[in-house]
């Protein structure tokens, strides 16, 4: 049986230039955070395909956090605008996928905002803990995950 | 038509500052600001409570906010700066779930959230404003040199009060000017008057309130305008003691700013409580040509 005090599975997708740097800044300043989160580094929030997030949930993630540069501050000028549109739409799609939208958050943290990063991680982790572990998905739900694009790596060339 | 406000007088306004209460209500009525006294209001949680127990102090203030909420009001107006600090602090605490829980543990009727509280000065400034006041003036305070004294906590702490400049406030200046008075550039608008040290350390009040009176006198002020019952008491009731201690006669009447606005609005003298002032205002009234 899962230990209620144990870490949950929270996956973060962070852009390299702002939010990954913000998480580094928080680390350099030794700003204590819960240990649940594991961070995947991507060049830009615009690189994040919403399907990565869907797959994370179907793979058993209890929460997914996306963070990029603040609007107007994107290292690639406009990648985070693309991200914002995609993720906002994805957020509204979550209930249809059988996923509590509270398990997903997208936000903006700059490389200098170590304290903000600490707050984001603490708040989001608390939120996911309040929701508890992700219910095990049924086979029918897993079938829904097949709603993915044809480039999926597992499919092969 | 202005919205209807819950009115929280506070204990001083039933005692030493009855004239503030009467003149404030009269000004609001004249300017179309409708006040409705909170039924069965109680202590705001001021000095004794908040020195001992912040949660108790918050609960005392929260009870009054809760009554106002039950009455369906959107905001509370209070003339007393100390009540204002407590009501605003409680309103902030009530919006925080953890603090609200601690406060509600002491209340028989829990209060489920805060309510904005504003000072009487802020209400008059924002709901009526200098222009509406100027339009309503029937007896301008022409030729009257007034030193506006806001007191130390009316606008402090700035983050909590979020009104006017905490170091150089101007709202009262603007209202008095609209009433036709000549407002002097009083440098000590927000300095301490000595507050409740009048009881344990009278010498401090002699020094601190003495500075205020001397500065007003040096600027040629005919009168002081105040917004706090405690300031008024120190400057008015103790003016003779201060004069003796500083070896300087002042004879400066200390009005609540609402009394001066009331005079300009031509309100009934009886509603302004001018007879309660210790330093006689006769000279000022004669200067305004309204003595008689």
């Amino acid at each position: 049986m899962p230990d209620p005090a144990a870490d949950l599975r929270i996956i973060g997708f962070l852009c390299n230039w702002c939010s990954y740097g913000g998480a580094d800044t928080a680390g350099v300043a030794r700003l204590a955070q819960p240990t649940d989160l594991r961070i995947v580094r991507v060049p830009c929030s615009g690189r994040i395909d919403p399907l990565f997030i869907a797959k994370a949930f179907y793979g058993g993630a209890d929460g997914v956090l996306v963070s990029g540069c603040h609007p107007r501050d994107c290292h690639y000028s406009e990648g985070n605008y693309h991200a914002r549109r995609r993720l906002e739409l994805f957020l509204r799609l979550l209930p249809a996928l059988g996923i509590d939208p509270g398990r997903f958050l997208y936000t903006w943290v700059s490389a200098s905002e170590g304290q903000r990063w600490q707050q984001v991680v603490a708040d989001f982790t608390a939120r996911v803990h309040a929701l508890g572990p992700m219910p095990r998905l049924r086979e029918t739900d897993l079938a829904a995950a097949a709603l993915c694009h044809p480039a999926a790596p597992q499919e092969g060339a | 038509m202005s919205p209807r406000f819950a009115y929280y007088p506070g204990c001083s306004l039933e005692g030493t500052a009855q004239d503030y209460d009467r003149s404030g209500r009269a000004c609001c009525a004249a300017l179309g600001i409708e006040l409705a006294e909170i039924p069965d209001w109680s202590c705001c949680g001021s000095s004794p409570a908040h020195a001992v127990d912040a949660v108790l102090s918050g609960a005392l203030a929260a009870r009054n906010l809760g009554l106002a909420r039950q009455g369906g009001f959107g905001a509370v107006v209070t003339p007393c700066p100390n009540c204002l600090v407590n009501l605003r602090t409680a309103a902030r605490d009530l919006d925080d779930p953890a603090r609200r829980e601690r406060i509600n543990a002491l209340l028989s009727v829990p209060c489920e959230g805060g309510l904005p509280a504003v000072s009487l000065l802020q209400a008059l400034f924002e709901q009526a404003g200098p222009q509406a006041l100027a339009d309503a003036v029937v007896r301008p305070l022409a030729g009257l040199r007034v030193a506006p004294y806001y007191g130390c906590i009316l606008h402090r702490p700035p983050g909590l009060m979020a009104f006017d400049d905490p170091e150089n406030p101007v709202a009262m200046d603007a209202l008095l000017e609209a009433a036709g008075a000549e407002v002097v550039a009083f440098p000590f608008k927000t300095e301490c008057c000595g507050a409740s040290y009048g009881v344990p350390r009278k010498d401090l009040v002699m020094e601190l309130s003495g500075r205020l009176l001397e500065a007003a006198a040096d600027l040629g002020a005919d009168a002081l305008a105040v917004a706090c019952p405690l300031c008024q008491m120190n400057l008015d009731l103790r003016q003779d003691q201060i004069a003796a201690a500083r070896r300087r006669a002042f004879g400066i009447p200390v009005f609540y700013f609402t009394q001066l606005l009331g005079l300009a609005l031509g309100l009934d003298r009886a509603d302004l409580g001018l007879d309660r002032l210790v330093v006689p205002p006769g000279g000022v009234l004669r200067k305004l040509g309204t003595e008689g």
Partner: protein
Amino acid sequence: MRLGVFVCHCGSNIAATVDCAAVALAARAMPDVAFAADSVYTCSEPGQEAIVAAVAEHGLDGVVVASCSPRMHERTFRRTVARAGLNPYMFEMANIREHVSWVGRDKERNTAKATDLVRMAVEKLRRNRPLTPREFPVTRRVLVVGGGVAGIQAALDCADGGLEVVLVERASSIGGKMAQLDKTFPTVDCSSCVLGPRMVDVAQHPGITLHAYSEVASVSGWVGNFEVAVRRKATYVDWSKCTGCGECVKKCPARDAPDPFNAGLAPARAINIPFPQAIPKKAVINPAHCKQLTTGKCGVCAKVCPSGAIDYAMTETTVTEKVGAIIVATGYELFDPKVYGQYGGGRYPDVITSMQYERMLSASGPTGGHVLRPSDGREPRSVVFIQCVGSRDRHIGRPYCSGFCCMYTAKQAILTRDHVPGAQTYVFYMDIRSPGKGYDEFIRRAMEEYGVRYVRGRVSRIFPKGDRLVVRGADTLMAAQVQVEADLVVLAVGAEHAPGAHELAATLRVSIDEHGFFMEGHPKLRPVETNTAGVYLAGACQGPKDIPASVSQASAAAAKVLGLFARGTLASDPQVALVDPRRCVGCLKCLKTCPFGAIREEQGRDGAVRAQVVETVCQGCGVCCVTCPQGAVQLQHFTDDQILAEVEALCRIPLPTCG
């Protein structure tokens, strides 16, 4: 595939809260891992040699280092891997320091988390492919934005190094804040004597093109090949004809224009040359105050100009400059003390800022170098300086120390005694911060030789008393209230970001910090670089700095640019997008979303239209990959496959396969 995993202790930085040996042990069980070990300092020479040796000994194809942030040492280890004979992109880092050991307190959980991060790195590395950078030509020209002392130094160093320099300055003359100063600490050198000749060097250097009264309007391109649009604002004076004789200024009847050079101490004429040593020494008309331009009635300057340079119909123009690198040297602005109601909030004429006082001390300033009260023109007998106005005050959003105010205040207090013999000077301070060569000695001289009275404490209020001012504050060393009567009060205002810094940062695609200063690439290791390749920082735009520090950083930035251009070509980052022509259906959605125009339409031999990525233009953001409905565009080193492998490494149940 044979992979090696190296878990770093970083002394005790990681090992104190992560069981590194356990992480290495767990790594040995991961797929394809042929070797795993922990070491005390992986980045040290023996640590790196151990990687090289292990690659040879175990025949490794790729390396994972679990240590600090890749933003710190990814380059270091890529070089190590290259030395071991592998492709540098056959390398991954797991950040178990900044993201684990420094932020988690529970050793058991930290160890589990570190193991997960290593597993992610291993899974990604299993899908890495060797990548090779391409060479591309560079434009060996550099743009310097800002003509203060930092910009001047950077421009001269680059130009002396043989580069063509384009210097853009917003004001009508270069010189910046330093040109406004009378003297500099701790030598009490004449500021314009130090700076003036350097300004002349800029004007005369054949390698420097100066665009004064101009601003950067837009920037496109990338390192090596930027294209910059420079907006040349309308001066209403044809500078090719203007000789700087100043006849127009003398005769101009509009005398109410603001004079930023004199910090508002005195008004200027509507046509003006800011100061005698201006470079270029050319007149500019302020259109908001010029009678001819506002009312159509005047034209005096056009009549008196001996060279016929006045042109009331002038409009702004834009020139385009191609450069390979950009140095930002836009400096700082001084804090506006009006928010401090307790210091008068701008109501008292005899409460002035330190820059106004500096202009008063300057022989070329509006008072001719005489210290005079603005209210009545009298010489003050008592001058009070208040430090930390707009510095180290969280309540007004300025929590940082501006760094130079302690020193300039000491200088101004010393100069006061020279200008007004017998004057009494007081300095209210919080702490004296004087780390610098000869700095603390200088403060001592102010106290001991010049009798400046230092009072440690904050001022609570300034109020008038007669025609003097009373400064009331605390003396925290004496635990007493103090009250000082002053004829003049000087507020030692701090530094804040230059106006327009946010806009310029967005234009250059670089980051700024919470206070509006430009962010360096790394606070220790990349202090003059930004995170945008080819954009460098010099001077106070990066944070408050005094003159020696600004000049040092400017020379460092110039050295970086010279190093960048040392070879005629640059290596492009191979982490770029790549189109799989077998999957591309030619919808060209990617072409529309690419922020850099790096995707072009290409007709194949079969006649079908497909997208193609221009490798040297692609910046590697990956926006196109998500846009492509076919999954035909993949960002190399960050492919869908690789990212999903990292996700899968974290998940408890295997990912469902799609079909």
